[in-house]
């Protein structure tokens, strides 16, 4: 199997004399770091299991893509990112957000379509987003996040910061036109971005050797100026080391690279997957090198954590996930009068927008929108940052009086 070819860029990163000579096998991190890594992986696993359960109970709708089995790739990556680095992914990204620091309750609430969800119920499982933690989304279009990643990296470069963008996507995305276009542009413009392909061996139900002529995905962007390496995505420490080095290359050497992390999802592509394309045996084989169990066993063996510590970590995750479900359950459904919120940014140069809503028997919503725009402007003049709820409050406070002429604004 392909994962036997796994290698990392460790030699480059750990060679103090810059000769690129291979360094010793990576050491396990200290207790605090180990606890954090294991804790996050266990939390993501428990979260995903619970999300699957809640989906079966119809609490969550739509499609549900679970990352069970892929925790080491996620956590290994996020654990070596700075707070001001950007992370962007595709649609199997509940765990990515949680690993970046998003409250699990807010992710669960988004799955439930509630107001306290990361997107207030507008995005769902495939569109988790948390600006505060620079998790720049979950996206439903395979490969659609690659140009966005290059754009984020461009903004960092343009603004003169040393932030790095890490862009994670699946093996299937390496066949999209965006992959080639983005690699070329990222290399051409020397953008500080690390591309990480989470190769879980299947683009939905099509095995990598059936969807990609070149199955060494790490080499797939080489001809476009983006060199790549392979890493064992089931080994959180190996992922950490490789990503650390590639983030350094992006940050300091200002050039993009590609990492291919071999990983595996134990569950189907989505909850609606009968899994006719693979053998149960294959799943079991991968489960034997489970990223959580193998890391926990190593930590216990090396006496960095005790069995009790590990159990404590599992209990904590259980509590957190139970609390997340409770939080999501208690969060209200989004009010229907907020249906049009966040569609447009009102105020400033554009006085308002005209919704084209033909379902309404009332006067054209344009009239309301125009007034909202004028009020937004006045709010702004009074120093308030404009937001739809403020406009609504103002509308009510003013008893919906007719507006002053728009001429007074310039």
């Amino acid at each position, binding site marked *: 199997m392909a994962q036997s070819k796994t290698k990392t860029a460790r030699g480059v990163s750990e060679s103090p004399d810059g000769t690129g000579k291979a360094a010793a096998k990576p050491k396990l991190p200290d207790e605090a770091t180990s606890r954090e890594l294991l804790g996050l992986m266990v939390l993501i696993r428990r979260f995903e299991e619970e999300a699957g359960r809640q989906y079966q109970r119809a609490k969550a709708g739509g499609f549900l893509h679970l990352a069970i089995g892929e925790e080491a790739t996620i956590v290994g990556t996020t654990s070596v990112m700075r707070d001001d680095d950007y992370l962007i992914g595709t649609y199997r990204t509940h765990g990515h957000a949680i690993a970046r620091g998003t409250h699990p309750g807010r992710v669960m609430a988004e799955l439930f379509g509630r107001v306290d969800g990361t997107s207030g119920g*507008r995005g769902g499982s495939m569109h988790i987003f948390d600006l505060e933690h620079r998790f720049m989304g979950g996206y439903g279009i395979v490969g659609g996040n690659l140009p966005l990643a290059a754009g984020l990296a461009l903004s960092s470069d343009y603004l003169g910061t040393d932030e790095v963008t890490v862009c994670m996507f699946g093996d299937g995305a390496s066949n999209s036109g965006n992959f080639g276009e*983005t690699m070329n542009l990222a290399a051409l413009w020397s953008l500080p971005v690390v591309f990480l392909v989470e190769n879980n061996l299947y683009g939905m139900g099509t095995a990598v050797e059936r969807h990609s002529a070149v199955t060494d995905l790490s080499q797939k962007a080489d001809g476009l100026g983006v060199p790549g390496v392979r890493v064992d995505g089931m080994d959180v420490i190996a992922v950490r080391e490789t990503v650390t080095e590639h983030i350094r290359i992006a940050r300091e050497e200002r050039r993009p690279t590609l990492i291919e992390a071999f990983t595996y999802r134990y569950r189907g592509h989505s909850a609606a997957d009968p899994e006719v394309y693979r053998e149960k045996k294959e799943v079991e084989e991968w489960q034997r090198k489970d990223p959580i169990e193998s890391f926990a066993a190593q930590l216990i063996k090396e006496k960095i954590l005790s069995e009790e510590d590990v159990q404590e970590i599992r209990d904590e995750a259980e509590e957190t996930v139970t609390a997340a479900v409770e939080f999501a359950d208690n969060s209200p459904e989004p009010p229907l009068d907020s249906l049009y919120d966040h569609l447009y*940014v009102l105020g400033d140069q554009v006085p308002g927008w005209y919704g084209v809503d033909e379902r309404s028997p009332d006067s054209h919503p344009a009239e309301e929108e125009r007034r909202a725009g004028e009020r937004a402007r006045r709010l702004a003049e009074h120093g308030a940052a404009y937001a739809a709820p403020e406009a609504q409050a103002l509308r009510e406070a003013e008893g919906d009086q007719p507006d002053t002429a*728009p001429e007074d604004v310039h």
Partner: protein
Amino acid sequence: MATLRLREALRDAMAEEMRRDENVFVMGEDVGVFQGSFKVTEGLLDEFGEKRVRDTPISENTIVGMGVGAAMGGLRPIVEIMTVNFALLAMDQIVNHAAAIPYMFGGQVSVPLVVRMPGGGGHQLGPTHSHSFEAMFLQIPGLLVACPSTPADAKGLLKAAIRDDNPVIFIEHETLYGLRGEVPEGDDEVVDFGEAAIRREGSDVTIVGILRMAETAQQAAQTLANEHGVEAEVIDPRTLRPLDLDTILESVRKTNRTVIVEEGWPHGGVGTNLAALIQGQAFDHLDAPIERVTGADVPMPYSKRMEQAAIPHAEHVVSAALQTLEGSLQ
């Protein structure tokens, strides 16, 4: 006031906004060294340098997507797409990303992006360089759509578009680039979106025309006045989202007759949409069915003779206007 060609007005708008805000930058195919395939970005590279005037490879979806990402990261990109037809290659980023991101992420980020593109027929560029896709963009919630027909509007609307926090599709017409007109001077001479311009006042019939068809509508109005004693009111919406429906409705309530003229295709077009809005809200004021004058329902042909036959002309607008007045003319 200065007299400028429309392409110069667009360039001045970009240059002024780039001087005003250093986070504004331009990227696109051949916008720099080549100075723009229609010379709209002429001189920008010299003044602003390669960091802010960026030549890109031919990768439309990625160029627009990078614009979206850069906008999310705090910049204000202007992306030029060489021809409106090429924007179809970027529809994923325009529809699934630029338009959807502010909404689907609950307003956590905005996408202050302008995507400029020229379209329209008249230069014998055939079926892949000459179309009019206003209706396609108009349909997408989350986008603003501008379609200027004069140099003054081109400049004022582009400045407003660059300053706006929403993704804006800015549609230009290839045959209007050389059009000269008076343009107000001053950094803050913006034209607000959502305010239609009444190009000619009249009481007998309302003619709504966009882009080059705003010009055609005015020619038709002149003929109607000179040869038929009909006073047409000509309205140029200037932006389709937001749409200044109020001004159009007010005119329709006065004239009781409407002709909508566009270069785009007849099915699901700008006129189809506008006709539905007008009949829905001014039905009692209409004395005749709304007439639509559109481009022919074919991919744009190359032959000059056929191309001209596929584009609306003033005579078509005149006949449509007379049609709405049938039976009521003395």
